């Protein structure tokens, strides 16, 4: 049996979700691919769990759940960058939240992992939105994989779908609902005729919106994902600053009522061709008119025609599905 060693960087919501799915699917991977997925390190901002023979995931989750990862017997005061550099592994899973202005700490994590000869799978969109071509170029030069399926659309497998199945197509346009929080708010305003603040408060109470929802509401989160789609699928060379961004903050419940009366919904749409994120009117029967926290991505291509993918844009297990889409690519290719 071949062994695939993993370093998990970031053991927050996504990191724990990936660990849970690993526990659920480990046996499947062993039986189908003869590959054992071994987590040799879990890095947090203040130290690292290390075990070259493979960490006990259940126990790591248990300690993390109590917020006492530091008390775990495998805990060492090793910084994440040192762990990435020095610990022997095949794949670094970079699952930290990113700072959109600097891309850190993910940018350094990804660069260090690739420089030290390790494949990278990430759910962190900020480093890719800032340095997409630099990072993909570095991976290519090193002959390594940089998987970033989980950065856009949660569980929707848009990046790998295009790479594996649609490459022959020229993509003319991409429109997407790429932020679950703003879609939940607009849906709530549309269906229940409530003001944005009320809908946002409910989203926060349900744990859909973060305590600081600024990036969701002002369109930044959508713009960051749009950059990744534009660069990876439409072969553009753009970064976040090239996108014209208008959020949903000024959208009134009156405007939604008017839209409904005339057969439209209002959705926050990322538009790759016009490099724009803005609230748009879409007909009620349009494939992009998805409700709640759902995401949807619509591609117009020259051969396949129009394709629309709909799925959960967030959630730890759903995002882990996309992380595993990239991990399995590496598992399949490893002799």
């Amino acid at each position: 049996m071949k062994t695939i060693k993993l370093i998990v960087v970031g053991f927050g919501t996504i990191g724990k979700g990936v660990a849970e799915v690993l526990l659920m699917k480990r046996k499947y991977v062993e039986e189908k691919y003869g590959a054992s997925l071994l987590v040799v390190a879990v890095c947090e901002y203040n130290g690292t769990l290390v075990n070259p023979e493979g960490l006990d995931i259940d126990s790591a989750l248990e300690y993390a759940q109590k917020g006492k990862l530091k008390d775990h017997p495998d805990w060492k005061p090793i910084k994440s960058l040192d762990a990435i550099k020095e610990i022997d592994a095949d794949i670094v899973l970079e699952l930290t939240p990113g700072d959109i202005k600097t891309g850190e700490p993910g940018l350094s994590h990804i660069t260090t992992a690739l420089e030290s000869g390790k494949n990278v799978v990430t759910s962190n969109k900020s480093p890719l939105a800032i340095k997409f071509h630099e990072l993909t170029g570095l991976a290519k030069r090193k002959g390594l994989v940089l998987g970033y399926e989980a950065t856009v659309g949660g569980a929707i497998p848009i990046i790998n779908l295009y790479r594996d199945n649609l490459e022959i197509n020229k993509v003319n346009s991409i429109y997407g609902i790429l932020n679950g929080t703003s879609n939940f708010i607009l849906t709530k305003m549309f269906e229940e005729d409530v003001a944005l603040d009320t809908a946002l408060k409910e989203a926060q109470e349900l744990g859909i919106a973060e305590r600081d929802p600024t990036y969701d509401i002002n369109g930044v989160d959508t713009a960051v994902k749009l950059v990744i789609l534009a660069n990876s699928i439409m072969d553009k060379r753009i970064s976040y600053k090239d996108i014209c961004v208008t959020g949903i903050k000024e959208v009134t419940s009156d405007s939604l009522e008017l839209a409904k009366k005339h057969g439209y919904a209002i959705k926050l749409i990322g538009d790759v061709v016009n490099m724009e994120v803005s609230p748009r009117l879409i007909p009620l029967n349009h494939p992009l008119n998805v409700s709640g926290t759902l995401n949807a991505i619509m591609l117009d291509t020259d051969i396949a025609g129009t394709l629309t993918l709909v799925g959960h844009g967030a959630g730890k297990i759903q995002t882990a599905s996309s992380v595993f889409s990239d991990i399995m690519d590496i598992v399949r290719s490893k002799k």
Partner: protein
Amino acid sequence: MKIDMILRVRDVPGMLINALGPVSGHGGNIISVTHSRAEKDIVSVHVSFKVNDESSLELIKNALEAQKIRVAEIKVEGRKYYLKKALSFVLIGHVIDSDIQDTIDRINKVGLVSGLEVVMPSPDVKSSVLMEAEIDEKHYTKLIKVVSDICSEKDFLLIRSL
């Protein structure tokens, strides 16, 4: 219905006959033809004719364009005719107080505002306005630009259709 069409054709022998062919060929009953040579090498031809319906007019227009004859203007029963590409959009802001007549007039220079619905909760609260405009499809991008410029200038949020 009575159609007035202004065509712009190159000033070479046979072009006028070519231009009139599609009109009669698709059921147009020609009432009058006048032409002027005000510009060098270009003849402006005003054709008045009658057709039974809009689809006949479309056939004539498409046939002319296929022959590279520029259709500069079409009037149906004296009113400007559009290809009826419709654009719906919502404006949020102090739309009424920011000279709504000016907003409509500027849009009408490119297209035609054909519908308008306003929700204005109170004078000090931003109003929401849904507008529908009809536009010759060739001028669609221009209309988007005009509306976007108005919104930047008057501080409106523009929500346009996809």
